[in-house]
C-alpha cells in the first residue's frame, strides 16, 4: 500500500495500441524491471433508479482490483466511496430494484505488472466491450504513504520511461480535504482509475483498434 499515480498514455503516432504497450514494456525492461504476473482493474456502472422528480440519476461505480482480490470498491463520481468484501457484488444483484446495471458500460484494464526496486508499475490496455480504447499506466511507490513527500521522486521515475507523457500531481491528492500530507488509502487509486475510465468512455473509438 503505497502512493499510486494512474495516468493515460496516448497511442504513439502511426502505431497500434499493442505496439505502444510493447514499446513501454521494453523500456521498462531496459531499466531493469522484472515482470511479476498480470493485473486487471474493472469498473461496472449502475444507475440509481427510483429518483424523485427529473433529477439526473446518480451513477454508482463498482470496481475491482487484482491487487486486492477479495475486495470490492463502490464509489460515486467525485463523491463518497466504500470498500467492501467480494460479496458486495451479490448485494448489488439483490438491490436490482434500486440500482440497474448498465451492461454496455463495463470498462476494464488488463496488462502486465512489473517490479523495480520498491516501485510497482502496471501497464494495461483499457478495453470497453472488447475494443481497446487506450493505455493505462499505474506507478506505485510502495515504501511511502504520503503523496506530498514522494511526488518528486515518483515524477523522476516516471520521466525515465514515460518521457514527455509524465502526468502532473493527480487531482485525487490535491482535492483531499486533509491535504497532500495525509496518508493514502485504496480509494485514491480507485478514484484515479475511475477518472481515467470516464475519459476513455467519452473518447471516440480509436481507428483500427479492435481487439478480437
Amino acid at each position, binding site marked *: *500500500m503505497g502512493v499510486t499515480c494512474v495516468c493515460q498514455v496516448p497511442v504513439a503516432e502511426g502505431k497500434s495500441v499493442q505496439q505502444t504497450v510493447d514499446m513501454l514494456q521494453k523500456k521498462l525492461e531496459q531499466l*531493469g524491471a522484472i515482470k511479476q504476473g498480470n493485473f486487471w482493474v474493472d469498473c461496472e456502472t449502475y444507475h440509481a433508479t427510483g429518483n424523485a422528480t427529473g433529477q439526473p440519476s446518480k451513477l454508482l461505480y463498482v470496481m475491482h482490483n487484482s491487487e486486492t482480490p477479495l475486495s470490492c470498491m463502490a464509489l460515486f463520481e467525485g463523491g463518497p466511496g466504500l470498500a467492501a468484501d467480494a460479496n458486495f457484488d451479490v448485494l448489488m444483484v439483490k438491490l436490482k430494484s434500486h440500482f440497474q446495471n448498465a451492461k454496455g458500460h463495463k470498462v476494464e484494464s488488463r496488462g502486465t505488472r512489473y517490479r*523495480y*526496486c*520498491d*516501485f510497482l508499475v502496471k501497464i494495461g490496455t483499457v478495453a470497453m466491450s472488447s475494443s481497446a480504447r487506450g493505455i493505462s499506466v499505474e506507478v506505485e511507490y*510502495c*515504501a*511511502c*504513504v*504520503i503523496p506530498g*513527500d*514522494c511526488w*518528486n*521522486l515518483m515524477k*523522476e*521515475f516516471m520521466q525515465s520511461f514515460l518521457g514527455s507523457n509524465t502526468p502532473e500531481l493527480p487531482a485525487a491528492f490535491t482535492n483531499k480535504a486533509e491535504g497532500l*500530507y495525509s*496518508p493514502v488509502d485504496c480509494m485514491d487509486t480507485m478514484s484515479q482509475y475511475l477518472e481515467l475510465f470516464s475519459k476513455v468512455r467519452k473518447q471516440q473509438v480509436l481507428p483500427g483498434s479492435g481487439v478480437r
Partner: protein
Amino acid sequence: MADVMNVGVNLEAFSQAINAIQALRSSVTRVFDSLKDGMKNKETLEGREKVFITEFQDNLQSVNRDLNELERLSTLVGRPSESHPLHNSGLLSLDPVQDKTPLYSQLLQAYKWSNKLQYHAGLASSLLNQQSLKRSANQMGTSAKRRPKVQPSTLALPTQYVDDVISRIGRMFPDMSIELFRPNGTSAVLLVTLGKVLKAIVVMRSLFIDRTIVRGYHENVYLEDKKLDIWSKSNYQAFQKVTDHATTALLHYQLPQMPDVVVRSFMTWLRSYIKLFQTPCQRCGKYLQEGLPPTWRDFRTLEAFHDTCRQ
C-alpha cells in the same frame, strides 16, 4: 635455496669432478671389458700373454690416474654448508623424486606464507590499536591487584535513569516519538516513530544501543501475540538500506563514558530521515539512484547522499 646450500662449493671444480667420475667409470669398464675379451689372437702363446698383460696394465694405470684426478678435484669442491635452513626437514630436499612427492617445495611455500601472514597481522594489529574500538568502559587485562576493586561501570545503570534519559530525548524532537518497552528483563526496546516516514526498533543494553531495525511507517511492527517484532527485515529495499546505515551509525557514535550523549547523537542522526523521500542527493542532484532514494546521512553534516554517491 640452492645458493645457500652451495656457498662453499666451487662450481667449476664440481663440474670437472663430475667429468672425472665419468672418465673413471669408463676406464674401469675398459678394464673389465678387456678381461672379459681375454687374450687376442697372436702367433705365439708368449706374444698373446704379453699383449694381454700390457693392455691390462695400461687399463689399470688409467684407472689409477682417473682416481687421483677425482681425489684432487674432490678436495677443491668443498663442503656444502652445514646449516640446513629448516634443520632436519632440509634433508627432505635430498629426495630425488620431485614430481611425485614435492614435499620440500611445498614445505618451503608453507613457511614463507606463514611468515608473511605473521608480518601482515603484526602491521594490522598496530594500525587497529591506534583506534580504540571498545564500546564499553571495562578495560581488558587489568592487573590482579586492581581486579577485586569494583570499577564504576556504565553497563549496570538503574532502569529509572534509563527511562528518564529516553523520555528527555523523546521530548527534544517534536516529530519523533519514542516508546519504551521492556519485554525481556531489564533491556529496553524502543519504538521510535519518525513522522509518517518510518518506524525504528532500537534494542538497548542499559544505555548502549545494541541493535536497530528500521521499517516503513505502514509496516507491521507487532507479532501475532502483540509483542514487538524485533527481527524481521523491512519489505522495502529503501528501508533495508536505512537499517544498514543505522547499524553503521550506532557503531560510529561511541563514547563509553557518556552513553546518554551517544543516544542523543544517534537520535539526532535518525531524525534527519524525516525528509527521506523529499531530499535529492547532494552529490548527483537526483532523487533516485537504482530505484533508491538518498538513504545515507553524513554523520557530521547530516546531508543526504545516495549510497553509491557517498564517497
